[in-house]
């Protein structure tokens, strides 16, 4: 790198090199610590803290004294908790994932393929589809609460006509989570579309032309040229969709309010409810935090190494 190879004598070179490396180190010590420190204190230490706290019964103040061993974890896996909490949380996370994979991402890809070329009309459609991304999940949730409201909502006349009376989707124990899925697709399909469009615009025009000359149909050029060439964008957006579905929180609160019903819980809302909202049982919430953390990290790393492979953000080569 920044070697001083044009120095005339070897001795001067080595002395200068050691001075140089001291300077380098000094610069690193000035520039790097703020980021590392704040990241350690507010991201990494809390995870260790959660691990430690999960072994105690803790009310949120005073020293940690009430050692419980793994009983908080055991409690999470007792039959009653499993039924009332894990089952809905796992079911809801699965639903979020499945909706992302089978509805949201295909819809985003379809839109991207339809409107990735630059034209005035296409950029208007892009703007419209992408617009909800900038709204907060809370505002999104509230807007959909209103849309779906059985008495005052936009869909109320439809309920009247087809169901013969007001219907409250968010109070429906079986179907209420459909509202979260609907709001999720509404808010985020445009975001994934934008990622795909950027990928598609990077596909070299010559490749598409030569595919056409070779007699490829539109479908063939989509399947064999466009999609393989944007595989990185597809994998990246799936990565964020997966991690996002494990952490769903704001949208749930937006739709259900501050205390979601059992059938609307996710891991994140469970942590909030048991740790900080009503029950103040920090040990239990910490144990659930550790479970959420472990799932995210295991899935995240597995995905980075086995799906992204050489394109993993941890492996991508430096250019210089």
């Amino acid at each position, binding site marked *: 790198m*920044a070697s001083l190879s044009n120095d005339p004598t070897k001795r001067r070179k080595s002395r200068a090199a050691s001075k140089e490396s001291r300077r380098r180190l*000094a*610069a*690193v010590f000035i*520039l*790097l610590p*703020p980021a*590392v420190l*704040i*990241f350690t*204190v*507010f*991201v990494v*230490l*809390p995870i260790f*803290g959660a691990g430690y*706290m999960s072994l105690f019964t803790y009310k*949120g103040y005073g020293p940690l004294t009430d050692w419980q061993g793994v009983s908080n974890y055991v409690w999470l896996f007792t039959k009653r908790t499993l039924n009332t909490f894990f089952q809905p949380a796992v079911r809801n996370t699965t639903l979020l994932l499945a909706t992302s994979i089978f509805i949201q991402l295909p819809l985003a890809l379809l839109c991207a393929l339809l409107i990735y070329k630059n034209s005035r009309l296409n950029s208007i459609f892009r703007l419209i*589809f992408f*617009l*909800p*991304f*900038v*709204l*907060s*999940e*809370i*505002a999104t949730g*509230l*807007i*959909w609460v*209103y849309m779906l409201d059985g008495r*005052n909502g*936009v869909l109320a006349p439809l309920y009247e006509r087809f169901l013969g009376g007001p219907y409250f989707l968010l109070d429906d124990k079986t179907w209420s989570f459909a509202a979260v899925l609907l709001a999720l697709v*509404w808010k985020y399909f445009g*975001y994934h579309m*934008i*990622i795909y*469009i*950027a*990928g598609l*615009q990077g596909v070299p025009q010559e490749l598409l032309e030569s595919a056409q000359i070779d007699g490829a149909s539109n479908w063939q050029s989509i399947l064999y040229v466009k999609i393989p060439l944007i595989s990185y*964008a597809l994998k*990246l957006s799936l990565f964020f969709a997966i991690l996002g579905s494990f*952490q769903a929180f*704001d949208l749930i609160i937006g739709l259900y*309010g*501050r205390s979601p019903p059992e059938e609307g819980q996710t891991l*994140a809302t469970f942590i*909030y409810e048991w*740790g900080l909202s009503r029950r103040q049982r920090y040990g239990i919430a*910490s144990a659930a*935090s550790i479970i959420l*953390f472990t799932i995210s*990290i295991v899935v*995240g790393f597995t995905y980075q190494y086995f799906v992204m492979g050489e394109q993993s*953000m941890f492996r991508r080569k*430096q*250019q*210089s």
Partner: protein
Amino acid sequence: MSKNLGYFFKYAFLITLSIFVLLPIWATVMGGFKTLGGLRVNPMGLPGEIHFEFYGEILRSPETWRYALNSLNISFFTVLLVLIFASMAAYTFSHIKYAGKDFLFSYLLLGLMFPAAAAIVPIFVINNSFLNLFNTHWAVILPQVAFGLGGSVLFFRGFFEQLPYELFEAARVDGIGYVGFYFRFILPLSLPILATVGVITLVNSWNNFLIPLIMLGTDPSVHPWPLGLVNFRGEWSTDWNKILAFISVNLAPAVAFFLLAQRYIVAGLTGGAVKG
């Protein structure tokens, strides 16, 4: 003929989807101009008679402006600190050779994967018991900065590596130090990436709900806007016209910002997606 049919289906699909996206926003904005009765008879259309009083009430209420100012304060310092800390760290990764660099880079990248929800309980305890920050904006800003660093460092490093290396060598020969080079060359040359990362950080911070919910108590005078929305909904549970007006007032700056900074938002989201 079949080509025309193709066009027909394409635009029928795109227009239907546009209605699906825009209708909720349209109904929300219009709803703020209607009375409760008007809302019930006519949820979708233009208001029969326009009522400005609900919007007026909300725009005159000091509460609304306090939420906006709190959001602005939190977002401003979050963006500022992310830009400074992330670009400084990224510069050491891109331009300076030292042991442990790759490890530290990967370490910061972990932030992209760590779920904030898993850290909230201990962050709450740390802020509360050790740093005495509970109920202050710093209790929100610092964790937001920490969770924003990973992605930002990745972006900055990518950009800094593209800068001509000869410039760095020439500056070194001229006796400009490492830290000096960061301030005098890297920062001024990085305005586009600073804008991009800044805009994405701003959107994330402005819309964040989880961290302020945990770190701020029930006193609404320190709450940012997303908390304000939930408070307002709790206060006026069934007065949907007021709630809709309040949501619309909240949407306005977000949409305006979206239209102005669209280019940077897109760049920030797709910067990593095209390479590979």
